[in-house]
């Protein structure tokens, strides 16, 4: 005899990812690693910015580089003699907490203070997928057009720091970076917005300063919660 049974499942894929992300964060906290998820449009300057930060920050840096097909970006980071794990996401359009969990296994966490996680270049798909990072930094550039923020509001709502990059070519591409900044702040009044050019170095100091403030705050927080 066969019978039909109804089974209450109540398993939310997005919440399951969030739980994994929390576990990642506990692993990071235990090892005293501050993790920064770097998201943004294709070609906005994510890798270039991380390269600059590796050279300028006084921390031991590690990188997880998510690339869709190649390990091209991972190769760029290796030149700086920092621990790098390249994640080949294949058909995936975003990193998820499970992929990052495995990357963490492959990194020498005790030798890292600040971990950059370069997400796949995409303003839509990564939004719902927490990775366990302590800070979300979104990097866009003027060359995507100054209506980018209005078109993709969700990613800016969850950001802590937003970098509007390539201001050196704003005039050439006819984009108004002030409008982009105003759009971000309208969606998320608490976010830190920095206009930068990695060609001229404009704004880099401000980015460094903003990140250091977050890192220091989190150090204090971790110390207090371990007391």
């Amino acid at each position: 005899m066969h019978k039909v049974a109804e089974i209450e499942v109540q398993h939310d894929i997005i919440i399951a990812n969030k739980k994994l992300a929390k576990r990642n964060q506990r692993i990071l906290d235990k090892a005293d690693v501050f993790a920064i998820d770097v998201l943004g449009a294709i070609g906005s300057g994510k890798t270039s910015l991380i390269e600059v930060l590796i050279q300028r920050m006084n921390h031991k840096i590690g990188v997880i580089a998510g690339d869709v097909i190649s390990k091209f970006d991972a190769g760029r980071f290796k030149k700086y003699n920092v621990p790098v794990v390249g994640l080949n996401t294949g058909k995936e359009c975003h990193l998820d907490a499970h992929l990052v969990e495995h990357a963490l296994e492959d990194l020498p966490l005790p030798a890292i203070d600040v971990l950059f996680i370069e997400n796949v270049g995409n303003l839509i798909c990564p939004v719902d997928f927490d990775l366990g990072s302590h800070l979300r930094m979104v990097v866009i550039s003027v060359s995507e057009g100054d209506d980018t923020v209005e078109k993709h509001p969700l990613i800016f709502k969850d950001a802590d720091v937003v970098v509007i990059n390539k201001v050196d070519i704003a005039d050439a591409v006819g984009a108004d970076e002030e409008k982009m900044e105003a759009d971000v702040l309208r969606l998320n009044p608490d976010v830190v917005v920095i206009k930068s050019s990695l060609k001229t170095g404009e704004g880099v100091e401000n980015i460094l300063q903003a990140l250091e403030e977050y890192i220091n705050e989190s150090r204090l927080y971790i110390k207090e919660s371990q007391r």
Partner: protein
Amino acid sequence: MHELSMADAIVKTILDIAEKNDAEEIIEVTIELGKLTLLNPEQLKFMLEVISEDTLLDGAEFKMEIIPVEIECGSCNYTGSIDSDELDHFTPILSCPQCGERDLKVISGRECNIKQIKIEKRE
């Protein structure tokens, strides 16, 4: 969009639960999908059917329940639904229906939840 990776995760989870419950066949699956997930229900359904081939899920009916968007406004304290028909699926710019505020807390509309499965099993 990431319908394919979501479908993959959904199918893995369902097959796991079905096996644990000694299912011989899965007849029906109910999935709750929030309006804000940026997932297209039709596309997701299609992906689910493709991935289900040659598994216990082959031939199962996938029912999609769309969850409307509910928000909480910190500015005027409005709590409730937003007329989500006005939302363009790709560019959901949310604003409070009462005061127009854009900085809102989303209470529902972001789920991708496997709610229930109906299976056939031997007694």
